[in-house]
Each structure stands twice: as C-alpha cells, then as structure tokens.
C-alpha cells in the first residue's frame, strides 16, 4: 500500500507562513551587534582597533563589558564625527579623478583575466591571552578564493597560518547561499565597474590610508521576499585597489559583513589547476556514561581516571560553590575507528545542577563557570583543533563571544566556560592541581 509520507509529515507540523525569518534577531542573539558597534568602520571614518590596539590587558578591572561598550560608543561617536568632518574636507578640497575615471582605473588595477583571486582577512573577534601578563593578541582568519565564473571556485582558509580547509569544486549553478557572496567582490565588483553601475560614494581615511569608497547594488531572491543590498568597497588611493568591503541594506551596515582585502587580482585561466577536492569525512563525537565524584574526597579516583592530577579552583571561586564533578566517557569516530577518551567536568554555579539526560548534569546558565579537562583536545569539549597548534602553554584562546576559553596547561587540555573574558582569564590564572593527599 502506497502512503503519502510528505502529507503525513505536513499534518504533523503546521506551516506557519505568518512567522517570518528574523535574521537581525539571530545576529543579536549571537552578540554580533554589540561587537560591530565597536568594530564597524564608517565609510569616511578611521577604523577603530588599529593593529596593536588589540594589545589590551584583560586583567584591567575597568571593566564590565557594559562599561567598555559605553566607553567604546562614546569614542566611536567622537571619532566618527571627526572622521566625517575630515572626509567632507577631503572630498571637497582634493583634486580627484572623475567618477568615471575612478571606475576605469579600479577595473584596470585588477586586470581582465578570467580567474579572480581574492585574499580576505577577517577579524575572528577571538584572542590569545598570555596567562602571566593578561595581554591579548587577536586571531585572524584568512580566506583566499579563486573564482572562475560558471566553472570553478576554490577556497583556502587559514587561521594564524594553519590551513583550516582547502576545497575546490565545480560551479554548475550558483545557489542561493552563495549568490550574494559571488555577486559581491568575487564577481559583482568587476561587473559593476565594467558596466558603470558602480558609483563613487565618498572619500576618506581608513586605518590611516586615504581611500575612495564606491558602491554597487544587487538583489537576492528568497521565499519571503527580495533582499536588496549594496556592497561598499574602500579603494586604496592612489592605486584604487580594494582594501575593505562591507554590505549595507536600506542604508544601514549589515553586522559581520566587513572584510579586509589584502590582495585582489585576476589571473589567466591556465595559471591555476583546479582539481576538485575529495569529500572530507565528518567527525562523529559523543558522550556516554558519567560518574559523579565528591570533592576533595575522590580526588585520587579522578586523578587515576584522567591519568593526571585534575585542575580545579577550590571549593568556591568568585563566590560560586563547586556544585559537582563528573567523569565523562567520550568517543570520536565511527564504529570501526572509534576512539574512547576520559574527560572530567567541574561545575561552579550559583544554582543547583539539573539532569539533562543519560545521567549528565547540566552546567550552563548565568553565574556559572564550567571546567572541562582531558588529556586530548576533544571536540566534545569544543576544542577548535586547527587552532590548537598555536596554543602554547601559558596561553589561553578566548573564543568568539568571549564565553569560552581554551588552555593547554600541566599536560591537560582545559576548556573553560564563563560569563566573559575577564572571568575566563581570572579562572585560567587560578587553576591549580588538586591535592591527592
């Protein structure tokens, strides 16, 4: 008997056309708006966070995030006003190329060969912290693309010099997910320069460099309606090669779309051999089995289970009592190649723990600090393995959002989860081996 599975599934859940996607809400929940308030450049302004300004101390008590944000906003407004004034003055007074000449020169600066090669640099908003001094240095994500319209797209991504991925694939037809990406600096930029649809929209200073801003627009079609966007590209004067790109919609910046362009050129078709990458197998990870401990009574058992003295913060840390310590048996890989690991999780929290399934205790929420340690960098504990090699003892990587820290210390890979960078840094500095006597 034939059954209409799709119809049964349709009957099980309701189509809710009245519920529209809310991308801004997702960005807000991700914390992107807050970061972008400080990071985003204005078309004619000087970008904040110049290289070196990331060298700030997380030890400085200034410093609740809210206060920093307010201070940042005030500074941004002041800097923005000054920069706008400077930009207006420059725009008004400097003898410049005509708009048409700008577009022509910008196009010739990258050439007219079929393969576009662009190197982007993203600020990941992640930092390395020196646990002795508290000083930080930023972590950058380098994304390199080679693109030949309708034929090939090759991606190469590196983080602090380490290759994260290198993938090449055929482009039979552009999909919605990548239409905007391709229509941006990879393809749309050149087209807009060539057909004259790009416009000069301003001149100013960006990170101390004189730039000319141009803009071109596009539209992307989605089930809920068209999305009209504008790409703003800062061209370095006098070469007029792209330096920075960001997207606006309805005249407003789109959070997270700003990218620095460190190189852009076009190449002859035969200068590069595209070879499709083999698929990469997915990593399978999971946890099974937990065992609860009493501390410090069970310190010896925990040390035996882990194969090294566990690191902890005492019975209380920053007013948060130690709520539980549990051993977790973890695995990675599929059945044939499955490997097993042991991890220890310590939870400092203002509230009692709750069971979330399989006997696992939950250590999330406000006023909570979690420590997860293992002898290996485990994906279950969120270890971003490509960045691991750069993580020297005495250093902590604070992940995007500032609530996760990763440190390699005393032979253990430690993941810390806390409310913010300052809490993470304080905790990482205070970690010490538990006494087993």
């Amino acid at each position, binding site marked *: 008997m034939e059954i209409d*599975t799709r119809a049964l*599934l349709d009957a099980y859940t309701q189509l809710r056309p009245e519920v529209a996607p809310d991308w801004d809400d997702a960005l807000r929940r991700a914390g992107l708006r807050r970061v972008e308030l400080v990071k985003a450049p204005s078309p004619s302004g000087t970008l904040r966070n110049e290289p070196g300004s990331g060298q700030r101390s997380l030890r400085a008590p200034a410093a609740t995030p809210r206060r920093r944000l307010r201070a940042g906003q005030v500074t941004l407004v002041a800097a923005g006003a000054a920069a706008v004034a400077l930009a207006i003055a420059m725009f008004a007074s400097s003898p410049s190329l005509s708009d048409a000449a700008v577009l022509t020169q910008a196009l010739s600066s990258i050439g007219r060969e079929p393969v576009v090669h662009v190197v982007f640099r993203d600020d990941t908003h992640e930092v390395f912290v020196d646990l002795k001094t508290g000083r930080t240095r930023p972590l950058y994500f380098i994304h390199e693309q080679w693109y030949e319209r309708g034929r090939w797209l090759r991606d190469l991504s590196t983080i602090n010099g380490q290759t994260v*991925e290198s993938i090449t694939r055929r482009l039979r037809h552009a*999909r919605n997910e990548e239409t905007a990406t391709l229509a941006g600096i990879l393809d749309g930029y050149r087209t807009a320069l060539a057909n004259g649809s790009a416009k000069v929209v301003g001149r100013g200073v960006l990170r101390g460099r004189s730039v000319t801003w141009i803009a071109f627009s596009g539209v992307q079609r989605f089930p809920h309606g068209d999305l009209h966007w504008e790409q703003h590209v800062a061209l370095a004067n006098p070469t007029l090669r792209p330096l920075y790109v960001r997207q606006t919609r309805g005249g407003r910046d789109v959070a997270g779309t700003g990218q620095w362009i460190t190189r852009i050129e076009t190449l002859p078709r035969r200068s590069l051999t595209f070879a499709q990458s083999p698929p990469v197998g997915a990593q399978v990870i999971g946890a099974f089995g937990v065992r609860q401990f009493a501390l410090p009574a069970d310190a010896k058992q925990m040390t035996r289970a882990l194969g090294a003295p566990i690191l902890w913060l005492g019975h209380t840390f920053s007013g948060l009592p130690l709520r539980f310590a549990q051993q977790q048996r973890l695995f990675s890989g599929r059945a044939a190649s499955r490997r097993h690991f042991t991890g220890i999780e310590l939870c400092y929290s203002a509230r009692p723990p709750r069971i979330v399934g399989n006997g696992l205790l939950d250590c999330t929420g406000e006023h909570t600090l979690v420590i997860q340690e293992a002898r290996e960098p485990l994906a279950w504990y969120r270890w971003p393995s490509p960045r691991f090699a750069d993580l020297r003892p005495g250093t902590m990587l604070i992940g995007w959002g500032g609530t996760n820290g990763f440190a390699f210390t005393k032979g253990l890979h430690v993941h810390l989860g806390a409310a913010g960078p300052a809490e993470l840094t304080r905790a990482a500095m205070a970690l010490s081996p538990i006494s087993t006597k």
Partner: protein
Amino acid sequence: MTSCPNDVTVATLTAIEGSYRSRYHQFLRVAEALCQDAELARDAVQEAFASAIRSRFSFRGESRLDTWLWAAVVNSARSQREASRIDRDAETVVVASADPPSPTDHALIASLPERQKLVLFLRYYADLDYRSIATVLEISPGTVGATLNQAHAALRRSVQEVP
C-alpha cells in the same frame, strides 16, 4: 519537492544567512516536530543560527554547510525540548492551530520513535541525502537507510490498521 543541494564549504555570514532565509520554514517545521511547540521551535531555530554565527570560524568543511546548519537546528531543538520538559514538569503542550490537522494523520507520525521521525523529516523536508542525515544524527548512513525503511513500514502498518 524542490531539490536544494548545497556544497557551500565556507561558513561566511552571507552563506549562513542565505541558508537561513532560503529554508527558514523547513528548519522551523523540523524543530517543531522535535519540540511540539511553535514558540519553542522558533526559539530553537534562532538559537541554532546564533550558535552557527558565533562558531562560523570553527566550521572546517568536514560536512556541507547545510548539513552543519541542520545539525545545529536539531541539537538546538533537542536542547529546547529538554529544557522545556524540566521547566514545565511534564506539562501537556497543546499546539494551537486555526486548521488543526487530522488527529489520525498526526497520531501516525507521533507514534514513531524519535529517530524514525527525525530521519523522515530530514529526508522529506531538509532534502538531505543519507550521508548528510547520518552526519546530522551522528549515525551511520546504513542506519539511516534502515531507519527510513522501518519508518515507512510502521506507517504502512498503521495506515492499514486505521478503519
């Protein structure tokens, strides 16, 4: 059904947003299948994408971007459901609808074990292939095939039993 494969391998914000806007209602319906609550489902999808945005630099192309996002939505919906179960202490959730589904049809899917239900939704709504479903659910592709067969067999049996 419109086929919408996705080989995007770099989790740029633009690519994540494109997937979100293109398949928002598919994400929502699968989340609702897990949460059995429209508000929870919406929250689960938003949280899943917030999480994807935060961790986009950790995406390493081990799976397709689309698969990665589906995994985020499924995990987020499961978390929301677990949290809700604890918070509500087994309160019965009634899904309000202007046009309520046939109780029989609804019950057919509801009677399936969660894994079978999820495999069906990921196959029919997400349009994922076996390998991608396997990645999302952390099971082998062979298990995906077996689970789909079991689900179809169970549905056929149930339909025959309905008077």
